[in-house]
């Protein structure tokens, strides 16, 4: 059995009187693609926010490669790449600046460590080309000038570039056309082939069935099913998601 890259045990989270997550236990192994499904309000986003360090849990713990993760800086240190639902891009900055934001390439010696813009532009181009995208040639363009689909692809490229152990994707194909969906799904497979664990939240159940190794279903803040997608249909999944309601 391959090594566990993500281990969640006994996770709980309350917002006032509302229980968002209750005793959630989940493991993701190297190269495994796990899809997190659930109806609106099931707790998917809360769980993703805790795994990426944006939110803290009330109980339980999150381990990445055996090390505790409880903040955004832990996530960065432990090589967790994230594609947020709102993409978390800075519109006025360029593609290259967004791709390297918080991880800028520098040259020189302290205190004169200056940005290495040519290197960042070159590597940004390579990262985007690696995804097979032909529409994002000029990495000096501001993100504000890109279409919704192009921005989504850029957010995926950024997460892929910095993820070393785990990648989290919250609705990564929401604003994409069929061709771009294929590009993103393909890049997720490539990341998994490189041994990176993937946790994916998506409402695109047909794509999830094609892509995921496991389907984990959340209902009312707790995991109600952990299924293999083999032989499952969209309606089977929906039935488990909504339960008897």
């Amino acid at each position, binding site marked *: 059995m391959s090594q566990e890259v993500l281990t969640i045990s006994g996770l709980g989270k309350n917002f006032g009187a509302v229980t968002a997550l209750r005793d959630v236990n989940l493991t993701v192994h190297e190269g495994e693609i796990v899809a997190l499904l659930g109806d609106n309000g099931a707790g998917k986003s809360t769980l993703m926010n805790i795994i990426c360090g944006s939110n803290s849990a009330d109980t339980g713990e999150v381990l990445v490669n055996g090390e505790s993760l409880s903040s*955004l800086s832990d996530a960065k240190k432990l090589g967790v790449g994230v594609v*947020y639902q*709102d993409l978390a891009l*800075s*519109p*006025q*900055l360029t593609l290259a600046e967004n791709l390297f*934001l918080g991880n800028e390439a520098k040259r020189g010696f302290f205190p004169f460590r200056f*940005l290495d813009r040519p290197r960042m532009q070159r590597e940004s181009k390579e990262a985007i080309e690696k995804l097979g995208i032909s529409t994002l040639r000029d990495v000096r363009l501001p993100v504000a000038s890109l279409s919704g689909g192009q921005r989504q692809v850029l957010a995926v490229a950024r997460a892929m570039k910095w993820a070393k152990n785990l990648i989290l994707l919250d609705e990564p194909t929401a604003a994409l056309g069929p061709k771009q969906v294929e590009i993103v799904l393909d890049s997720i497979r490539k990341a998994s082939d490189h041994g990176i664990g993937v946790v994916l939240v998506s409402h695109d159940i047909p794509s999830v069935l094609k892509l995921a190794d496991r389907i984990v279903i959340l209902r009312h803040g707790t995991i109600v099913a952990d299924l293999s997608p083999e032989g499952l249909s969209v309606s089977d999944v929906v039935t488990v998601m909504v339960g008897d309601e």
Partner: protein
Amino acid sequence: MSASELKFAQAPTSSSALWHKVLKVLSNRAVQIILVEIVVIAIFQALSPNGAFLSEANIRGMLLTASQVLLLATGQAVLMSAGHIDISQGAVLIFSSVIAGNVMIAAQDSMSLPAVLVLGAVVAILSGVFLGAINAFMVGVVGINSLVTTLGMLSLATGASQVITGGVNLFGMPRELISGFGAVKFGALPLPMLVSLLIIAVIWVFYRYTGWGTHTLAMGSNFLAARRVGIKTLLITFGIFILSSALAGAAGYIDLARYSTTNISGHLNDSMAGIAAALIGGTALTGGRISFLGAIVGSFLAIILQSGLVIINLSPFYQTIAVGAMLLIAVSLDRSSRNRKGGD
């Protein structure tokens, strides 16, 4: 295709490329302001008696005023690029000059003159740093909006200056403050102006070539995104508020060096001059965009208008109207050009 045909076919392409370059340069806000300034200067020079507008004395006076406004506008531009604003700069300037003035008066009998002058500069800047750190704490830690925070600081620093001085301007500072700094000039260029330009150049280099500038812009562009990628937003918030107030402190020292006294009631609107200069120069109030050159030429535009209107003998009330009109025109033009391009 023959060589001559090829040349003919390429001709429109190269001329259109040149035209594109010219249009690109002309679309730069700083260049537009410089062109406006050239026209305004020519008009004032033609209308002023005996060409007094471009006399050495008037140019030096404008540059001395600019040496202070430039510092304030630079601080504002950096803050605005992160989505913040500081309306307490004028009060911080007064407070810093009061503290530095008092320290210099107290120290001049016990210390050498150069040491007193240096001490005054250090105290003025540190006074600014202290007030800037309070602003940063309120915005970054307590979570109060920067406009509200600095509105409070405007009142606090003004009141503190009045309490310390009893409402009377300070006198008795070392004379060498003027002769050794404020009145030193190289041709028409006053030393305070050179110092201000040097400070701004250092800030620009660090903003443009280190991660600090990109991170500050990212905070103004999308604060949550900046936090999520691990940018130390609190540290930057402290840095930029302290910078803004330290620059106001430096401007306070220049004030002492120009007049050898404090000007307790004279600078309360200085923050507005800095904000207007940064906005006219193309820095976005909502963050994510900055122009240092724009802030510099924006500062000069207001100063040229004020000086010119005085020289051609128009009522001082028109100066205020002219600066306000320039601000509204510049921001409206910026808005419409961004709407045409699809905006940011």
